[in-house]
């Protein structure tokens, strides 16, 4: 509880820091909305030409995309700065986290907040609502609960992957290239149902860097497409499990990284 209180205070001060640069704040949010709108339009053009993409209609694709954006919004709001870990290590600013009588992770996480995440929330919520009505979905409490659970799981999956990559930078110093790989995979899975790709790609985004759990698998379940996905269909329920597993791995790697830092200082 104490940690949470400190975290909120840290976030508060980061927010006030950000607000010092108001213009940056506004342009950031606007550009995220524009970026997402362009992406959605491209999907629209693509699906309109082919009518269906491996059994996915236009609004199902919109649902898939908006689901990803929704999960991603919380990640980008609160955890985006995992990719700045390498700067803290290279410049030695990580030291100051170890100088204070509280945990290092909470200090690092409280260091920054990315307003552009708000743009993601707006786009994600709008997209999901539009898709819901066009697909004539009629959800009960169970589906809504599952939506919330799996959106949060998606956030945690992306966060855990970023956390692992940033921890690796304690060994490699630089981690930007690994983040690029994650972003590329993310870009593919956010826009297209991964069943249009070959098996090897599905194995990679399911087992190796499991970004497919951010939106693809939970969408299968929520859109009633598990049958269609065949032997992969059962994975639709697994994103909370994957999220917890990944967070566990991330915590282990992080602790090893901290131990390494305290013995090398770099």
């Amino acid at each position, binding site marked *: 509880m104490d940690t949470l209180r400190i975290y909120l205070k840290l976030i508060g001060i980061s927010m006030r820091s950000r607000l010092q640069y108001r213009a940056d704040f506004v342009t950031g949010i606007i550009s995220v909305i524009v970026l997402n709108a362009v992406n959605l339009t491209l999907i629209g053009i693509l699906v309109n030409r082919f009518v269906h993409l491996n059994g996915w209609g236009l609004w199902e694709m919109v649902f898939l995309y908006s689901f990803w954006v929704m999960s991603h919004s919380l990640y980008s709001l609160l955890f985006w700065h995992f990719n700045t870990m390498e700067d803290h290590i290279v410049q030695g600013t990580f030291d100051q986290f170890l100088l204070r*009588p509280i945990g290092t992770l909470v200090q690092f996480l409280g260091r920054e907040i990315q307003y552009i995440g708000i743009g993601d929330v707006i786009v994600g919520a709008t997209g999901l609502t539009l898709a819901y009505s066009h697909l004539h979905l009629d959800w009960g409490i169970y589906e809504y609960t599952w939506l919330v659970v799996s959106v949060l799981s998606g956030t945690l999956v992306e966060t855990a992957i970023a956390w692992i990559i940033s921890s690796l930078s304690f060994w490699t110093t630089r981690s930007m290239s690994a983040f690029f790989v994650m972003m590329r995979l993310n870009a593919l899975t956010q826009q297209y149902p991964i069943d249009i790709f070959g098996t090897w790609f599905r194995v990679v985004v399911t087992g190796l860097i499991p970004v497919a759990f951010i939106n693809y698998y939970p969408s299968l379940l929520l859109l009633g497409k598990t049958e269609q996905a065949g032997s992969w269909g059962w994975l639709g329920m697994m994103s909370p499990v994957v999220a917890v597993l990944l967070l566990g791995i991330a915590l282990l790697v992080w602790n090893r990284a901290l131990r390494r830092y305290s013995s090398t200082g770099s």
Partner: protein
Amino acid sequence: MISVRHLTKEFKRVKRKEGFLSGVRNLFSAEYTIKRAVDDISFEVREGEIVGYIGPNGAGKSTSIKMLSGILVPTSGHLEVNGIVPYKDRKANARQIGAVFGQKTQLWWDVPVIESLRLLKDIYKVSDRQYKRNLEIFNDLLELDTFCQTPVRQLSLGQRMRADLAAALQHDPKILFLDEPTIGVDIVAKEKLRTFIREINREFKVTVLLTTHDMWDIEKLCSRMLIIDHGQVIYDGSVEQIRDTYGGSRTLVVELEEEVADFSVPRAELVKSEGRKKWFRFNRLEASPSDLITQIGGRYPIVDLTVEEPEIEQLVRSIYQGQGRRTEVM
């Protein structure tokens, strides 16, 4: 207060390979070189002391401070800070120490100083009473109130250092580590910082370990200094002792009424001559300045004279340059 025995810290560095795919090959079969940054250092610091910790760049000063503040784990040896082993109980140690690193600020860059202080108050669980009392002290001695509403990025270096000192002291630490607290600061601001450090040491019995390249910091603040080089302690003693041991010689500079040929004086050596000015070096145990003045004045009328003390910086340099085998002048 601080006890360091046979402290050693080694760093493993990957030996970079050259040529095709060198980066990838480094990942798999890396060769290491081992660098011993701190090599079997032992010293004690008593409560209430201000100890200068000096040595050339790369001597191991910062590494030692990082071990004492719990950032780094030593390779071997024993260290204790007020009864706590820093790397075993980092958080407990963090509560009882304060640290200022002159090169990096601990404060939040974009918000007013006072907001950083308020946040640190929560992090260190400082009571309202303690917070108010300390703020008054900081206003008084550091003139914190003149810039506490300014964002850190707009502060001058001297103000920033004062803000950092306030941030490091508001939880009433028993020990203060200062790593180059006066670096880049102008002379007037330096003097303010020194006065403040002396004050909190005297008033609140804060033990201070400070590294610096400015020998005036040492002369004005420290009762004792530790000189380290190549990871080893090469001198541990008082500032006066270093003068006695390494700097027994003084220089008498006389300006005569008119230009005369070089001449010699018993128990002194003419080291420089420039027109009417002559420099005589003498050992203060063998000769006294007044003797020399009488002798010289007896021969030629003297217009002006000064006695130059050896600069501490010069002495330290001569210790760095090999004069200093391991000397213990306790």
